C-alpha cells in the first residue's frame, strides 16, 4: 500500500497507508486527518479538500477542479490541488501532501 504523508501547517507529519484506487481525500478522511473537510464527499463541488502537493504521476487538472480552486478558502498556489481528484497509485508512494491553514 502506498504511503502518503500529510503535513499540517504547524509541521506535524502523519504517514498514512493508502489504498490504491481511493482518492487522497478518502485516504485522509479514513485516517481521521484534521484539515480535510470534504463537504461534498469527493464530487468536485466544494473545494474543502484543498491540498498543496508536488509530485510526479499526478493526473492533469480538469477544468472543474481548476475553477473550484479559485474559490478555495486558503491561498491558491501553483501546487494547489483538490485531494478528491487525485487517485492513489503506486507512483504516489512516499509523497508528502501539505494541508492549507483552513478549508472554510
Amino acid at each position, binding site marked *: 500500500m502506498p504511503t502518503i504523508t500529510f503535513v499540517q501547517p504547524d509541521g506535524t507529519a502523519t504517514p498514512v497507508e493508502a489504498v490504491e484506487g481511493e482518492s487522497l481525500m478518502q485516504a485522509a478522511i479514513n485516517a481521521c486527518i484534521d484539515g480535510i473537510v470534504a*463537504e*461534498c464527499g469527493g464530487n468536485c*463541488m466544494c473545494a474543502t479538500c484543498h491540498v498543496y502537493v508536488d509530485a510526479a504521476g499526478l493526473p492533469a487538472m480538469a477544468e472543474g477542479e481548476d*475553477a473550484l480552486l*479559485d*474559490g478555495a478558502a486558503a491561498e491558491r498556489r501553483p501546487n494547489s490541488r483538490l485531494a478528491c481528484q487525485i487517485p492513489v497509485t503506486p507512483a504516489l508512494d512516499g509523497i508528502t501532501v501539505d494541508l492549507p491553514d483552513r478549508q472554510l
Partner: protein
Amino acid sequence: MTSPAPILHEAPVSDLDPFSLAYFDDPFPHMEALREAGPVVRLRRYGCWAVARHAEVHAVLSDWASFCSSRGVGLADFARETPWRPRSMILEADPPEHTRARAILARVLSPAAMKGLRERFAAAADRLVTGLAARGEIDGIADLAEAYPLSVFPDALGMPQEGREHALPYAAVVFNAFGPDNALRREALESSAPHLSWVADACRQEKLAPGGFGAQIHAAADAGEITRTEAELLTRSLFSAGLDTTVNGIGAALYCLGRFPDQYARLRADPALARAAFEEAVRFESPVQTFFRTTARPVRLGGIALEEGEKVLMFLGSANRDPRKWERPDEYDITRRGSGHVGFGNGVHMCVGQLLARLEGEAILQALARRVTAIEITGTPERRHNNTLRGLARLPLRLHAAAA
C-alpha cells in the same frame, strides 16, 4: 467454457406506503424495516424498487448511466406520461445535456461566488436573531427557518418584489409532485396555476434584478451558451429548489438543537462549529427524503436483476441513518465527520446549491451561538406533510438571550 450464470436472489416485498401521513409522522421504524429486509426491496403498492441502505443508495446515485434522471425523479415515468410541467434542464436530464446546464449553475453558485455573499448573509442573520432573542418566545419555523431564507435568498436570486408570496407554495407543489398520485399531489397540482404562472413570468430576464443568480444565468444566454428559453428554465430550477429546501434545513437544525441541549452547549462554546452543526442536521433529518431514478438498461443491484424502465426509489433519509455506515446513527452529534452523507445527494446531480445552503445554515447558527444561551422547545412541534420534503409547520421555541 462459459461462466456459470450468476446467482440472482428474489427480492423481499414490502407493503409500506412511504408517502402516507402515518409514515411521515414517524418514518424511522419503517426505514429500519426496509434496511433490514434487504439491499433492494420491492414496493408492492407502487410497483417500484426501493433502496434504503447507504451502500445501495450511494451506488444508485453514482451510476447515472444505469439509473437515469431524464425519465423523471418522481414516480411518474416521463417515457410513459407527459410531465406536469416542462421538464427541468438539470434535475430531470442526463449527461451530456445535464453537463452543459450544470456547468452554468455551478459557476453561478461556486465557492468563489459564495465568498461575495458571506458578509451580507451573516449581517442579515445577526439582525434577525438579535430581534428574536429580545422577543424570546418564537415559532422556530415561521419566525426563523422561513424568515431567514426569505430575507436573503430572493434578493440573491434577484426575484421580482411583486408576488414573492408565491415562492414557497410553488416549491411545495414541485416537491409534492415527485410523489405518487395521492391527495397531497392532487391538491398541490389543483391549486398550482397561480404559482406556476407567477414563476414562469418571474424567470424572464427583464423581471430579474441585475447582479443576482437569475441575471447571471441569463448572461450565459447573452453569451450564446444557452438559449433564452433555457435560461428561463434554469432560473426556474433555483425557484423550485433554492428556498423550501433551506427552510427545512434550518428548521431541522433548530429542531435538533432544541432536542439535544448538550449539542447546543457545544455550539455555544465554539460558534465555529456552526457549519458542522447544520451539516449534521441535514444528515440527521434529511430535509429532502427521497428521489427516484429510472433504469436506463437492465442492471443488477444488490443481487437483484432489474429490467430496463423500472423506477427505483432512493431513501436518502434512511441511508443517512444506516448503522452499516454510521456509528450511533440516531444521535445528533455536531462533531461527527459526516462526509459521505447523502442529504445533498451524490454524483453528477449532487445538490448544486449545497454551498449556498451551508452558507445560510452556518450564518444563522453562528448568530444563534453568539446571541442565545439556550434553545428550549416549549410546545408540541407540528409536522408539515410533503411527498418529498421533511420538516415542521410549527416549532414553539423559547430563546434565552445572552447578556449583550
